[in-house]
């Protein structure tokens, strides 16, 4: 099976750590992926907020290119991107006219045949638990890890078709594979404010704060995420939140791929963990003890 | 990979040798190189006779309704995807038990129209295959015990293909013009009932036309009797016809019967979301109902 890789804009920019760590663990898993040639932005929230058809057409271009290059499966590690790609596939699946319009506009035939996976889906379904488990060299048993799913990995269920939207378990399963202890808490799927990060920072901080403090309260050492946007809100804004609510948080926020990378025995540098705003030294220290 | 005919012959041979079936119905060479015909094999030694190519136009499922064939008990049958739907429908309608049939599905790449083959046509192309092949969704049969993959590539479809395009043309006509069209067609009918006999789903032991108290269908071979026969045939196949096209192929006077069958299949799908022959466990569309069925035409 030919696996396509759709990085999306964030992984090439603010969330370069995600891509770095992801490529590392794929290498370890011996899975080869190829970047979709000349991919474009999926349009994220802006497109569907302003122009429905465009919000389908933009991701569709990537899908069409992948399909015409003989790919059968697409990995979209960014939760927002995978959501947009899946939505586009869903919409075109139920709207033949739109599909034809898009295919005409792209001047490319399009069958809508690709399967799209987000990072968690990819790891669980394509890489497989067994294989992941076999690669764990340094079990992270000293760590208590909170999985934060956010919105777009599991919602809406009829489009995502993955995990339980209100009681998701997939990331916790992956955490457990690394030997770390998954932490249960209430706000696993609460929204962090997402795209309004820049435009409504106050709202975002209120939402993100609630999540972070809840995680803190449940005694986690760190948070793992599978979404650049969630990461950005939880990590980049953490200092600001601490200042606003005058209470320290100090929770490192790692991508799930980084956590797996650590368990696989990669060094923090190889995984670009130093790229985060919240310093992770404390937990790295805990690990090396 | 094993060649198609080898695999077919080996499968047939093994089935007969292991006594899993008592009879294999398949295709074999016919009266000329561009005609194939059915063959009935009971001896594993004869399995070599079985072959498959684009001239295998017949729907062998038609034989499953014959009492002489039923007598064999367990039967293996070679079917194309379209014909296999007939097997499904026969099972669905209790004419056949799933346990008594071994389905040897062949991946079909399209069948060449017989009238063209009779004039020497030997290549599978968009222009030489039956309309049903242009819209085929079952190149691989839906249900099978053994699948024999095709050696051939799929033929290429170019341009805007509209199978049975005449239907849309007829739909667009005035009711009077449609009346003229069909009257002209049905006047040709000689009431040989080949359409009925060739149909795998016309399995009644006594057809309604053979009932005379009351005389449902006029016996004459004139406008009225012919129209009634064609009406009843279409009506009884509504929601059941699986589109194998055998009726039309058999018709010695070239009545475009598939235009009727296909139209009814489309209407049934549009109104009830039902397609025939897909699922042996589905309730037939006219054996069930929904309280929210189409109601617009009723005052």
């Amino acid at each position, binding site marked *: 099976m030919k696996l396509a890789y759709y990085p999306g804009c964030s992984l090439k920019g603010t969330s370069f750590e995600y891509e770095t760590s992801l490529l590392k663990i794929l290498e370890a898993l011996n899975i080869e992926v190829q970047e979709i040639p000349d991919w474009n932005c999926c349009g994220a929230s802006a497109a569907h907020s302003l122009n429905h058809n465009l919000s389908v057409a933009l991701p569709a271009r990537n899908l069409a290119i992948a399909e015409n290059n003989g790919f059968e499966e697409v990995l979209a590690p960014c939760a927002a991107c995978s959501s947009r790609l899946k939505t586009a596939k869903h919409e075109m699946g139920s709207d033949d006219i739109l599909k034809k319009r898009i295919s005409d506009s792209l001047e490319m035939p399009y069958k809508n045949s690709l399967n799209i996976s987000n990072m968690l889906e990819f790891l669980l379904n394509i890489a497989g638990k067994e294989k992941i488990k076999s690669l764990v060299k340094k079990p992270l048993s000293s760590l208590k890890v909170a999985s934060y799913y956010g919105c777009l990995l599991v919602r809406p269920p009829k489009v995502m078709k993955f995990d339980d939207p209100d009681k998701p378990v997939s990331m916790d399963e992956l955490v457990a594979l690394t030997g770390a202890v998954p932490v249960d808490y209430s706000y696993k799927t609460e929204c962090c404010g997402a795209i309004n990060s820049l435009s409504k920072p106050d709202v975002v901080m209120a939402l993100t704060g609630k999540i972070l403090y809840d995680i803190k309260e449940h005694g986690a050492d760190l948070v793992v995420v599978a979404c650049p946007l969630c990461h950005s809100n939880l990590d980049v804004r953490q200092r600001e939140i601490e200042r606003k609510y005058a209470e320290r948080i100090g929770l490192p926020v790692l991508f799930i791929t980084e956590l797996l990378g650590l368990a696989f025995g990669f060094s923090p540098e190889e995984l670009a963990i130093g790229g985060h705003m919240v310093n992770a030294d404390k937990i790295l220290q805990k690990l090396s003890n | 990979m094993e060649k198609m005919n080898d695999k077919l012959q080996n499968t047939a041979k093994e089935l007969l040798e292991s006594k899993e079936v008592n009879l294999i119905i398949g295709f074999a060479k016919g009266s000329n190189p561009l005609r194939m015909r059915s063959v009935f094999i009971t001896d594993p030694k004869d399995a070599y006779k079985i072959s498959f190519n684009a001239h295998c136009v017949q729907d062998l499922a038609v034989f499953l309704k014959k009492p002489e064939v039923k007598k064999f008990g367990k039967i293996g049958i070679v079917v194309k995807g379209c014909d296999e739907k007939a097997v499904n429908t026969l099972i669905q309608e209790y004419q056949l038990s799933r346990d008594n049939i071994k389905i040897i599905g062949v991946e079909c790449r399209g069948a060449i129209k017989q009238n063209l083959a009779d004039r020497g046509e030997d290549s599978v192309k968009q222009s030489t295959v039956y309309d049903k092949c242009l819209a085929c969704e079952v190149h691989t049969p839906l249900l099978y015990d053994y699948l024999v993959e095709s050696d051939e590539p799929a033929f290429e479809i170019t341009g805007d293909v509209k199978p049975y395009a005449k239907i849309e043309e007829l739909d667009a006509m005035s009711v009077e013009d449609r009346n003229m069209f069909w009257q002209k067609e049905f006047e040709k009918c000689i009431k040989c009932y080949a359409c009925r006999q060739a149909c795998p789903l016309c399995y009644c032991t006594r057809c309604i036309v053979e009932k005379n108290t009351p005389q449902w269908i006029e016996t004459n071979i004139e406008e009225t009797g012919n129209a009634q026969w064609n009406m009843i045939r279409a009506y009884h196949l509504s929601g059941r016809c699986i589109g194998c096209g055998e009726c039309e192929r058999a018709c010695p006077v070239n009545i475009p019967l598939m235009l009727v069958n296909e139209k009814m299949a489309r209407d049934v799908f549009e109104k*009830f979301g039902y397609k025939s022959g897909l699922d042996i466990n589905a309730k037939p569309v006219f054996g069930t109902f929904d309280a929210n069925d189409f109601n617009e*035409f009723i005052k």
Partner: protein
Amino acid sequence: MENNRVEEDDKNAQNDKGNLSGSGSAKEKEPRIIAFVCNWCTYNGADLAGTSRMKYAENVRVIKLPCTGRIDPLFVVEAFKKGAKGVLVSGCHPGDCHYTSGNYHSRRKYTAFRDLLSYFGVDTNRVEFSWISASEGNKWVSVINDFTNKIKSLPDSSDIFSKQ
């Protein structure tokens, strides 16, 4: 062969004693409408129209059946063959079938059958379907009157089944 049986009608015909023109077939210019109705609802509705002394067109001839589920679409064809200009099929409203589901089954069949008639070039204006309950005498009257007027407004049909 079964078909060799001569139908009783025809034997009777030869024993006939008198003139039947009294039924008006010769004089009648009015279009004939045959109505196949359910015994439990529409037939009672028609009776109610009678007990209420409502007036309606004389064109309709009612054939009473136990349920719309019994009304074979081929009866409609037979009616046209025998010169009916219009055919009405009428039964119980959805959900009200005396036999739970006869009208639902019938509705399905007629949905397809109507399409078929129309496809074969029969003007479906000539086949009417209605749900008329036992209490809807007035609906019976308006359905009959409207249908009669509609039939009168249609040109003489030359469709497949109207040929003699």
